[in-house]
């Protein structure tokens, strides 16, 4: 240590003796300003680089990724001091400019003196102090408020508030407006002309209520409100990984949601089913079991990521945690993946407590480029025999896997190193090559002539037709032909015993080479194709035993041998040499599947004997392995038709380790599975279960004030256009506070006390005067309509636009949709280069359209449909010229206009024609100015309009703002 160090030490001793007041004033005059000036910007409330905060004592004591930043009394060992001294062992701080020498000395002295820091006492929970968190409005129990006046409780709350502002509701909306509004809000469809007539002619006091009850009991209600829920559930029919694999059974969850709304399933039950329905099913009534399993589709449809989704499951779990948090609790739990939440009382520990629950949950595997075979779907429990069979099969598959792993682990390494190259080259797509071996090759007994065929690209490769012949130069009669011998004997086993003591081996040349041990008869659905494979579809060696070509993915010539490399590694054909000699070698490679993007490379070499003992062990084990493998593929290839759900199941429970800064390979401490600390934070007690059931019960419990407030606010939002809390999925500190907290609590409490019935809540809301007032002009005293001083006019949603066009055309097919016409599973070859993409448009309601993740359906992208990749609490309502182009030129609009024209053409006069046209499209007759405008467009002389003119009128009406908006 140099003299400067001594000086500091001396100084430090002196400082230590200062009384507390002095220490405090020194901290305030030097250290606090220094930290504020240089450090807090990156290590404070706004940013926490490397996880470090220096804005309170607990922050530096806990430190960042590298541990505590300050060791009181030990400046030389304190990272903070080392950093400002710009010592080589640490990152120099601040990064772009040095502290002045005086500032460095101040800091050293302060640390040496014990780092007195008065900024303590505020224990934190994530982004809030414990005190703040305890008093945050959204975490309080539901208040027992009562309406501040007589009459409809909602009006009592709202009108009291409006009166204080000197305002009142608008006049009640016109009857035809209110029925149109109510029909769209409750069913997403306009009223029919007879429904409108009947409502207009019913002057009874119960007339309105009767209509409400009727609309709530139509199946269209569930199709409208189920869609709101599917927005939150980021529902889609594809997985969202790089190749966007289709999910054949996602639709069951979609239909379950629609059905749950139509049946008015209590919301607490609705929550439990979606988080842990599979665990509730065994004790449920027979009729409910299938639905309970399907309901966990809420978790299962989480987005998948990357090329091989298994390696990015931490992102899928984040999607689940974030969606669960935002949807049910209005909390952004996902923000705590990499660091404690910046603003809300949620810690990284909370995140990984939940993470453990979902790491203990098996998610279905939709397939992906790296592994195309979907698996882990859940059988519907409605058929106990099938379930038992599936469970038995699953258990057997697991047993086979471990048996195989044991055998393979015991096998010696096949050492093919030291091979002498003989020939190599490559063929392009559609190409061919001859094995160019000009002179005989010397081999001794036990050598192996190895032909390795590798993919040139990392996106797999095609089947290659291979010919390979050897003959002993000294004995012309001793000859071997891969093709004929494989065709005759491949079915007998691998290796294929050859003439004159030789043997053909078909090898998976991974890092640990091994024999292909999965036998497939009737590959690609053709009885003439026989293959040996490895774990998956490839690598493979295959023969067409038929004398004729067979047409599968390509036309394969008769009596031929084919080889297919693995996804990124070679397949091998090895000839084990029976005797010493010089061998003449001839052969060729031909692309057997032209049109794929890639070719293959090949490498012919002689592997010197030395692996023989190891190979013998492999051969010995081969028959056992192949038996196990064929048993497994038999179990796997049982047809899996529609009686499976895309749903979750339990796994062996594990507690998760914190992933430091969200990086899965950087493991931190293990966190017991449990609920977030802010609302009690109970730990999962079951040791033999994931904890999903406990999570479901905790979310749905009557004592969780968030769930009830959040759903009551969502129902309100979709009736009034904005929520009492305007940020419906964020009830934390970055969200907006409720405009009417007492009303929200009253609604939530009333909801819970009356059995969490959503239809009851709708009825309560739509029977209020607030809902029934007219849209009215804006008022400067309430510019954003926070006081509900008028009805908020709205644009139709994407689904409503499309369904209404079909209604106007008289073409809407109101039967529920089911599955989508995806291509058969065994034909799926999707890659990131050629991902799955399709549109299966039908005339069913829009909710039944197939939804892709990576290439959005253009219509729903254009009209602000829900984001299928993230939970969507509120749709946008943009206005862009490309939407106008849609109305001007899209075939659907033109077809609808033409169909509407034919529906009204038979009316006796132009007036009657146009009147019916308006009544169908807009549920009201035209006004005189409107008629005048339309008449300018059409020939004035004729008594009746022809289809062409009517279609022209229909296009104008269907493009108009009256059609597109709800008053």
């Amino acid at each position, binding site marked *: 240590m140099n003299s400067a160090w001594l000086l500091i030490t001396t100084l430090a001793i002196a400082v230590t003796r200062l009384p507390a007041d002095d220490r405090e004033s020194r901290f305030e005059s030097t250290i606090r300003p220094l930290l504020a000036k240089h450090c807090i910007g990156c290590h404070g409330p706004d940013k926490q680089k490397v996880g470090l905060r220096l804005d309170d004592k607990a922050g530096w004591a806990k430190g960042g990724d590298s541990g505590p930043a300050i060791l009181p009394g030990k400046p030389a060992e304190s990272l903070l001091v080392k950093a400002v001294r710009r010592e080589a062992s640490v990152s120099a701080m601040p990064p772009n400019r040095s502290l002045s020498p005086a500032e460095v000395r101040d800091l050293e002295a302060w640390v040496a003196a014990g780092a007195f820091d008065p900024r303590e006492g505020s224990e934190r929970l994530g982004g809030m102090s414990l005190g703040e968190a305890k008093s945050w409005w959204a975490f309080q129990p539901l208040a027992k408020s009562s309406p501040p006046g007589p009459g409809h409780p909602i009006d009592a709350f709202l009108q009291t508030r409006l009166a204080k502002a000197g305002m009142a509701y608008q006049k009640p909306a016109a009857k035809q407006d209110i029925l149109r509004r109510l029909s769209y809000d409750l069913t997403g469809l306009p009223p029919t002309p007879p429904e409108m007539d009947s409502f207009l002619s019913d002057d009874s006091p119960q007339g309105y209520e009767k209509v409400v009850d009727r609309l709530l009991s139509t199946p269209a209600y569930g199709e409208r409100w189920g869609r709101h829920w599917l927005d939150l559930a980021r529902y889609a029919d594809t997985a969202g990984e790089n190749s966007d694999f289709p999910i054949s059974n996602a639709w069951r969850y979609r239909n379950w949601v629609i059905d749950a709304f139509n049946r008015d399933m209590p919301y607490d039950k609705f929550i439990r089913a979606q988080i842990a329905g599979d665990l509730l099913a065994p004790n449920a009534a027979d009729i409910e079991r299938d639905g309970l399993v399907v309901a966990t589709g809420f978790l299962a449809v989480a987005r998948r990521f990357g090329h091989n989704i298994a390696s990015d499951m931490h992102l899928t779990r984040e999607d689940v945690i974030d969606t669960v948090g935002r949807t049910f609790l209005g909390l952004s739990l996902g923000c705590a993946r990499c660091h404690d939440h910046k603003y809300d009382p949620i810690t990284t520990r909370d995140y990984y407590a939940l993470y453990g629950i979902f790491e203990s949950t098996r998610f279905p595997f939709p397939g992906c480029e790296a592994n195309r075979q979907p698996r882990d779907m859940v059988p519907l429990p409605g058929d106990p025999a099938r379930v038992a069979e599936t469970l038995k099969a699953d258990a057997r598959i697991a047993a086979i896997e471990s048996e195989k792993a044991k055998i393979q682990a015991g096998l010696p390494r096949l050492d093919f190193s030291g091979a002498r190259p003989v020939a190599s080259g490559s063929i392009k797509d559609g190409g061919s090559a001859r094995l160019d071996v000009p002179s005989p090759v010397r081999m001794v007994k036990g050598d192996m002539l190895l032909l390795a065929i590798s993919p040139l690209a990392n996106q797999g490769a095609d089947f290659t037709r291979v010919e390979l012949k050897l003959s002993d130069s000294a004995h012309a009669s001793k000859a071997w032909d891969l093709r004929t011998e494989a065709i005759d004997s491949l079915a007998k086993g691998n290796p294929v015993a050859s003439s004159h003591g030789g043997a053909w081996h078909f090898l998976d040349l991974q890092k640990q080479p091994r024999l292909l041990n999965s036998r497939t008869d009737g590959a690609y659905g053709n009885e003439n194709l026989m293959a040996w494979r490895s774990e998956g579809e490839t690598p493979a060696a295959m023969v067409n035993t038929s004398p004729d070509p067979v047409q599968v993915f390509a036309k394969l010539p008769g009596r031929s041998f084919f080889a297919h490399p693995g996804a*990124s*590694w070679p397949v091998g054909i090895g000839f084990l040499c029976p005797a010493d000699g010089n061998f003449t070698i001839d052969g060729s490679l031909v692309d057997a599947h032209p049109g794929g993007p*890639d070719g293959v490379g090949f490498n012919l070499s002689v592997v010197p004997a030395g692996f023989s003992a190891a190979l013998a062990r492999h051969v010995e084990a081969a028959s056992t392995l192949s038996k196990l493998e064929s048993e497994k593929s038999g179990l796997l290839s049982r047809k899996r038709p529609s009686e499976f759900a895309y749903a979750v199941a339990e796994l062996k429970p594990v507690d998760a380790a914190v992933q430091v800064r969200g990086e899965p390979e950087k493991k931190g401490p293990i966190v017991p599975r449990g609920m977030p600390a802010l609302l009690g934070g109970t730990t999962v007690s079951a040791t033999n279960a994931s904890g999903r059931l406990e999570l479901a019960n905790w979310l749905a419990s009557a004592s969780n004030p968030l769930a009830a407030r959040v759903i009551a606010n969502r129902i309100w939002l979709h009736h009034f256009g904005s929520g009492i809390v305007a940020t419906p999925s964020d009830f934390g500190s970055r969200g907006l506070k409720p405009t009417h907290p007492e009303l929200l609590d009253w609604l939530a409490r009333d909801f819970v006390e009356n059995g969490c019935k959503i239809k009851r809540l709708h009825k309560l809301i739509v029977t209020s005067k607030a809902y029934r007032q007219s849209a009215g002009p804006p008022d400067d005293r309430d510019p954003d309509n926070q006081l509900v001083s008028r009805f908020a006019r709205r644009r139709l949603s994407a689904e409503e636009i499309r369904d209404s066009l079909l209604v106007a055309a008289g073409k809407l097919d109101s039967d529920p949709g089911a599955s989508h016409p995806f291509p058969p599973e065994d034909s799926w070859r999707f890659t990131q280069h050629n991902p799955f993409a399709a549109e299966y448009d039908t005339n069913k309601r829009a909710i039944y359209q197939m939804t892709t993740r990576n290439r959005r359906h253009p219509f729903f992208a254009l009209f*602000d449909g829900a984001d299928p990749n993230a939970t969507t609490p509120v749709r946008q*309502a943009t206005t862009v010229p490309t939407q106008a182009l849609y109305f001007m030129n899209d075939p659907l609009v033109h077809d609808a206009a033409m169909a509407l024209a034919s529906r009204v053409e038979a009316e006796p006069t132009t007036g009657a024609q146009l009147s019916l046209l308006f009544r169908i499209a807009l549920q009201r007759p035209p006004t005189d100015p409107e008629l005048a405008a*339309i008449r300018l467009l059409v020939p004035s002389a004729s008594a009746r309009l022809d289809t062409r003119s009517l279609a022209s009128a229909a296009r104008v009406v269907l493009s108009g703002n009256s059609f597109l908006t709800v008053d």
Partner: protein
Amino acid sequence: MRHPNPEDRSRRGFVGSCLGGSLLASGLASELLAATDRDGLSPRSSRFPAKAKKVIFVFFSGGVSHVDAFDPKPALSRDHGKQVTLDHPETRGRGGYEKLFLKRPGWEFKPRGRSGIEISDMFPHIASQIDQCALIRSMHTSHSNHFNATLGMHTGSFAFSRPSIGSWVSFALGTNNSDLPSFLVLAPNMPYAGTQVWASDFLPGAHQGTRVVGGADSVANLKARLPIEQQRKELEALAAINSIHGSTRPDASFLDARSRSFRTAFGMESAMPEAMNLATETEETKSLYGINRPECRTFGELCLTARRMVERGVRFVELIHTGSSGNWDSHGNMADHTRLAAQSDQPVGGLIADLARRGLLDETLVVWTTEFGRTPFNNRADNPGREHHNWAFSSFLAGAGVKPGIVHGATDEHGIRAVEKAVHVHDFHATILHLMGLDHEKLTYRHAGRDYRLTDVHGTVAREVLA
């Protein structure tokens, strides 16, 4: 900048002629014709003054090999065949890739222009414009997979969908031509990650990229399904019934905006084809882009269209060569880069030259990039291809606000890692936004309780490339 076109008069006139009728109360006229913008696309000034007003973002899909094109590595030729030991994401645990060998460049490098920057013979036309460019040889990115790296290069996010850089720029600056979208993507083929590449995500939908596939139906529903006179009449009637509807609802700005959007759409029906119509360009201009050569005709036409779009005030134009297949992903044989360069080199070189001679380069930023580079090594030195390489690649910037004729950053002697002044994708984005007069830390959007940025929590402006 407005360009006269023959149909313009009748198109512009339709609202006016309708207003001339007796249908409308006079007070509504101004309402209907009001040019006030409420859809978020009116032009806005940048945060601080900047020369660049528009962007042409050229994206070569699949991974262009830096060591064969922009980053000369004599040591790589010298050490050809030498084994290297690397823990590389593309070869880790991959059978047959236990050993890695350096592989020499397949193209010859030469000093180019006054700057003397060395570029290979792969891109002679781009090389001829290098004095206009700041070449960044120290690019690197976070993922070695096409999908993720492509998403990252466009949105700053390597897994989740987020707004595209074009959407961010449109959101920040709006557009000067309401007859054309503010963010256009000229892409005949779908790229990796699909429409997420140009999605506005949580930003208002007006800022999503409009994909132009080229040809007659270049934008969905652009082509009038009716004779133009008939459509004009119907739109007049529509304007009339909308103004009747609006007369009792004077408050709803959305209703006006929607009425106006039909006028814009009608304008687009002619403005888009006009902008796409290359017939008025001289043969000399066309041949500058290589349009006279069959192999570069397609991309040449797109590049020329890009120039015409920025001339007409489009804020952000992206060009994609080519798509998610048949692209620069030359695992099989690097010679495939020759074929692709023949399609794309002259169009890009011609674009820069054309922008420069017309003075457009003074206000247009040209960005050229790819999602990652290619490995300077392979499992055999004689393996004809190269694999994905995210540790280093090259990109360049040209035009407004860019320091011309410089090289920024460097890789190690074999081109394996960016070692000097490394520029991550986030830094690249920060630099592009800076050139547009935008602060990447201040350009934020509140969504789901958080302020989001293009650069997430990262990004440092590469100040040395600024003029």
